[in-house]
């Protein structure tokens, strides 16, 4: 039918054209083929180029982070370098670069070397090479790294028994094993024998150390917590019933009892700890540095040791994986530049999950009201604009709000109600930054995203479904609960994914509401009441900032920055992938093809 109509209008041009002759092709206005814009090619190049540039930048960023992040833990060979000014150094080469040495520096060098450098400078357009050697042995040299001018190097070898010791404190140690001392008697001499003996003794020593840490941290901690509780009970009794009230006196008596018990318990635990310490103190490794100095290193100080130049591919992979294992599962040490980031991973994931749990129901309810109940009008429009604008507020502003409102107002109120004794001692419990308030702050920050996406998802539910439900006699809420929400769930998940992506990467507001450089106690542990939402926490983003800008050993921290960044990206990606998989399942189940 429609074709006949269009045919009818297409057919009569001669009639409508009237007396004028049909234009021939040559009479037509010439097409501007010369204009590049006219045929669209440049726009393809422009738009395609923009996309390609964006892609290249993203891929470049990811590639850099992945490559540098993955490379950090790979053990490189240990080289021994002799210089013409008579120094001998052992370490790992981390970088090599060209630079222009200053004249003052040249003046301090031996004449022969200085002459060599000058000659080299002339030959290579004023550029001299130098390498950065990670020499470790901070306790001996007071430095972790040393620059060595290429021209000074007279000999470079890879000694067979050069060993890398990663220590609990003082950073790495580079040297050759001489003997293993038990009770200051050489139980093994010579590098090979010492290394073999080390491998048999070291696990037991580390196990004892772990026991000792557990005793000191948990059992001693539990004892002192009991004493703290008794002390707080006195304060509480005084606050509630007044000085010298029976309750107060009972609490004081209880305190005396606890003190006595605590003294005995402390004695017992300290004795156990001393026993473990004494046992561990028997084992030491005698190391010789490249410049011939000897150093005794207690075995319990050594986290990991390996003869770098003897390792094959499998050995290196073993060290590599062991370092990754430590990185993701252990606590940080050496001011965060060594060890693991487990508390930070925990804090990041926990905070993100709590945030999602807070923001999703809240945002969905708000969006439901806006979309389903509110009468559309100027107020609703203003509200929508306001919500969209809220998404653009700088995150630090939310941090300030979180500190001012959640910590200082809500938290103080909670303290006044439930923790008055602590408050009287000027130790706020909820009245300071913590993982709960950080989650609340980020929930607020990501709320607009959730509201906007949920609203879109609700709007995308076909009207026919709602009508079908109403026609069955369903009430408005039944329709929303049984039809609209299930159908909109995948879209709501999209909002949650966006919220996670936004929230997990935020750092600035967290610095104000509870993220800490170091928070060794996790907000969930074995101590009653097991969940401590008031505790401050570590966050990978903040850890990254701290590592990159506040580390004393910046050269050693730099590769860790990349590794931590890689980990942060991976965690956010994993969180997102999980959410996307859930959304895909929901979509299949509820048959929504839209976002």
């Amino acid at each position, binding site marked *: 039918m429609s074709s006949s109509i269009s045919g009818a209008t297409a057919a009569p041009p001669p009639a409508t054209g009237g007396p004028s002759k049909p234009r021939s092709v040559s009479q037509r206005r010439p097409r501007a083929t010369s204009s590049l814009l006219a045929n669209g090619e440049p726009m393809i190049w422009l738009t395609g180029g923009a996309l390609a540039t964006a892609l290249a930048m993203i891929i470049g960023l990811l590639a850099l982070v992945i490559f540098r992040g993955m490379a950090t833990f790979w053990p490189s060979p240990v080289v021994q370098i002799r210089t013409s000014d008579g120094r001998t150094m052992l370490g790992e080469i981390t970088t090599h670069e060209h630079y222009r040495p200053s004249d003052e520096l040249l003046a301090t060098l031996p004449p022969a070397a200085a002459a060599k450098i000058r000659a080299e400078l002339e030959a290579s357009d004023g550029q001299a090479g130098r390498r950065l050697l990670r020499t470790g042995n901070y306790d001996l040299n007071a430095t972790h790294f040393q620059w060595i001018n290429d021209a000074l190097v007279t000999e470079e070898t890879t000694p067979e028994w050069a060993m890398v010791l990663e220590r609990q404190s003082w950073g790495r140690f580079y040297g050759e094993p001489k003997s293993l001392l038990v009770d200051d008697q050489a139980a093994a001499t010579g590098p090979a024998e010492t290394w073999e003996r080390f491998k048999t003794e070291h696990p037991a020593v580390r196990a004892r150390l772990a026991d000792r840490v557990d005793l000191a941290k948990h059992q001693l901690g539990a004892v002192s917590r009991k004493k703290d509780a008794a002390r707080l009970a006195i304060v509480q009794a005084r606050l509630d019933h007044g000085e010298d009230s029976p309750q107060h006196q009972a609490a004081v008596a209880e305190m005396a009892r606890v003190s006595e018990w605590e003294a005995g318990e402390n004695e017992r635990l300290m004795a156990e700890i001393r026993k473990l310490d004494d046992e561990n103190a028997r084992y030491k490794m005698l190391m010789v540095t490249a410049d011939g100095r000897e150093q005794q290193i207690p075995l319990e100080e050594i986290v990991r040791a390996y003869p770098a130049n003897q390792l094959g591919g499998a050995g290196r992979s073993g060290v590599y994986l062991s370092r990754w294992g430590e990185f993701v599962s252990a606590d940080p040490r050496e001011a965060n530049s060594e060890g693991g980031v487990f508390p930070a991973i925990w804090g990041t994931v926990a905070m993100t999950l709590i945030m999602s749990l807070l923001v999703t129901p809240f945002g969905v309810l708000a969006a439901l009201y806006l979309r389903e109940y509110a009468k559309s009008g100027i107020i609703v429009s203003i509200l929508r604009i306001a919500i969209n604008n809220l998404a653009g507020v700088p995150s630090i502003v939310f941090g300030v709000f979180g500190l001012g409102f959640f910590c200082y107002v809500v938290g103080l109120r909670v303290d006044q109600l439930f923790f008055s004794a602590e408050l009287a001692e000027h130790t706020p419990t909820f009245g300071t930054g913590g993982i709960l308030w950080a989650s609340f702050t980020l929930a607020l920050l990501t709320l607009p995203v959730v509201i906007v996406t949920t609203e879109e998802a609700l709007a995308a539910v076909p009207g*026919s479904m*709602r009508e*079908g439900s109403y*026609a*069955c*006699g369903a009430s408005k809420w039944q329709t929303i609960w049984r039809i609209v929400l*299930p159908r909109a769930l995948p879209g709501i998940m999209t909002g949650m994914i966006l919220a996670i992506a936004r929230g997990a990467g935020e750092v600035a507001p967290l610095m104000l509401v509870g993220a800490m450089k170091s928070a060794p106690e996790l907000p969930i542990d074995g101590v009653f009441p097991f969940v401590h939402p008031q505790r401050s926490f570590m966050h990978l983003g903040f850890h990254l900032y701290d590592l990159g800008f506040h580390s004393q050993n910046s050269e050693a921290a730099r590769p860790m920055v990349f590794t931590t960044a890689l980990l942060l990206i991976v965690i956010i990606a994993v969180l997102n992938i999980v959410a996307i998989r859930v959304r895909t399942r929901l979509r299949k189940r509820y048959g929504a093809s839209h976002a």
Partner: protein
Amino acid sequence: MAFIEPADKLRPVQPRSHAQAAAAVYDPATGAQPTVAHASTGGAESSAFGTAPTASAGDATSSLATGRLAAIARGEPIEAAIHPSVALEDPVLEVDNFCLWYGAKQALFNISMAIPRGKVTALIGPSGCGKSTLLRSVNRLNDLIDTVRIQGQMRLNGDSTYGAGVDVIDLRKRMGMVFQKSNPFPMSIFENVVYSLRIDGERDRRVLNEVCERSLRGAALWDEVKDRLHESGLSLSGGQQQRLCIARAIAAEPEVLLMDEPCSALDPIATGKVEDLIQELRGAYSVLIVTHNMQQASRTSDYTALMYMGRLLEYGKTSDLYTKPRLKETEDYITGRFG
């Protein structure tokens, strides 16, 4: 094949004689598009309506009847030609002088008709004539539109549906509705069918199973889906989805089953199945069906009402309406000369 009218065929006919009116539609030579006269100018004029004396109905051959379309175009009231056979039936639903406005635009003009119990009644008419609006007024789905205003009355088995204090939700539970486009809910076939029981809080598994089987059998779908009741309702084919919606609509034993062009989105085979189903529902249910397809109306319905621009033109037994219509306009519409 689904008979879908292009919207541009809806032309008010200029006041002129029979022959001219017919010629105007048929003669493509003039090429002149008649200007579309918008349905009356507003509520003020229309609300004064209904009391005005109208032309005598039933006089099919008189020149007054010829002028009906013209009178409608001028916004004058006309009286519907309702066959006496309708009055012989026991009505399940009575529509009494019903008017409806979308904002300032009036969509239904003084509709009065009685829907017989246990019969299939078809509403036919050109696009935009108000068939669907009338249907959706029965179960008050139009309440969902903020701008809708109504006047007049409807009674379902004697109970006023628009009176003060009527619970819309209870009212809708007494009716079932099937839509133009099948709209199974995003849940399993089983849950789709028992939805109206679920919202009433029915939890007894035995009752639910029984209702589900009875409804699916009633909708001639049981044999096709009995082994996959817990798959998503959206996994069914288009025709099956529509029959699922019919099963859902009859699950609560509705007093009236409303169908809004239930076959217009289906292929001929699925259409045939749904039409057969409507035949089977006759007797057990009172069906009010809106259709574009006059063959469908003649095949499936016992009674047919022709609407035009918000007015009821003629209403009677389907056989009478198709073979010996009272109005010239009805004959013209049925033979495809207007509409």
